[in-house]
């Protein structure tokens, strides 16, 4: 003697009879395949972003004249862009012949840092991060890494040049 098990249809099907012609067209396997394809696309995007991040390193680019040394007073700063037009950078003249330059982007969340002459530090106003004015090392706050340094030199013509590291 066999016992037939009858399963009552769920209540919502009785209340809302749903008949879709394409209801069975996407199987679980196909749905999972779409998900995996999406995951693959995101993996490719991640690798691409990592490669792009590496290629656009702040100290990598063509040598570029920034400004005449005489146009920046000792202890003063000058804003410029390097290596690309949308990469804000800042230089500081330390003495007669010495200048240092850094990316202006804070290494915490990318806010713009500025120079505080009283404390001789680069300061990020977003989360109170502070960097050493000469080395760019983190002094306090949440930034995890030093500021991106840009190699510069004063040439014989009196211009300050960003040297850049060949790609």
């Amino acid at each position, binding site marked *: 003697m066999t016992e037939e098990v009858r399963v009552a249809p769920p209540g919502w099907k009785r209340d809302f009879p749903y008949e879709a012609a394409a209801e069975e067209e996407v199987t679980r396997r196909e749905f999972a395949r779409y998900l995996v394809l999406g995951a693959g696309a995101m993996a490719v995007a991640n690798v691409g972003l990592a490669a792009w991040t590496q290629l656009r390193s702040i100290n990598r680019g063509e040598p570029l004249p920034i400004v005449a040394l005489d146009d920046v007073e000792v202890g003063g700063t000058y804003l410029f862009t390097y290596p690309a037009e949308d990469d804000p950078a800042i230089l500081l003249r330390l003495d007669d012949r010495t200048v240092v330059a850094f990316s202006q982007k804070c290494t915490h*969340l990318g806010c713009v840092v500025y120079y505080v002459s009283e404390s001789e530090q680069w300061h990020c106003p977003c989360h109170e991060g502070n960097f050493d004015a000469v080395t760019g090392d983190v002094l306090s706050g949440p930034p995890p890494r030093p500021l991106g340094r840009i190699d510069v030199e004063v040439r014989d013509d009196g211009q300050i040049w960003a040297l850049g590291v060949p790609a």
Partner: protein
Amino acid sequence: MSNPTRRGPSSAVIVYVIVLVALQVFSVTVSVEAFLTDDERLGWAAAGVSVALFTGAAAFLRYLEP
């Protein structure tokens, strides 16, 4: 008597795949943040994790019944 609501292991597999894809979305946000802060090491770490997640999700497909 069999339980009509019982599903095979493939039901669990699809949940694993969904979780891995959710983690994949998170890894994209980490990569974007690494890009915006010029953090090369974080960017490559996120890319490595992302590739591992994709590999895992693809491997789970083998165990998924139609």
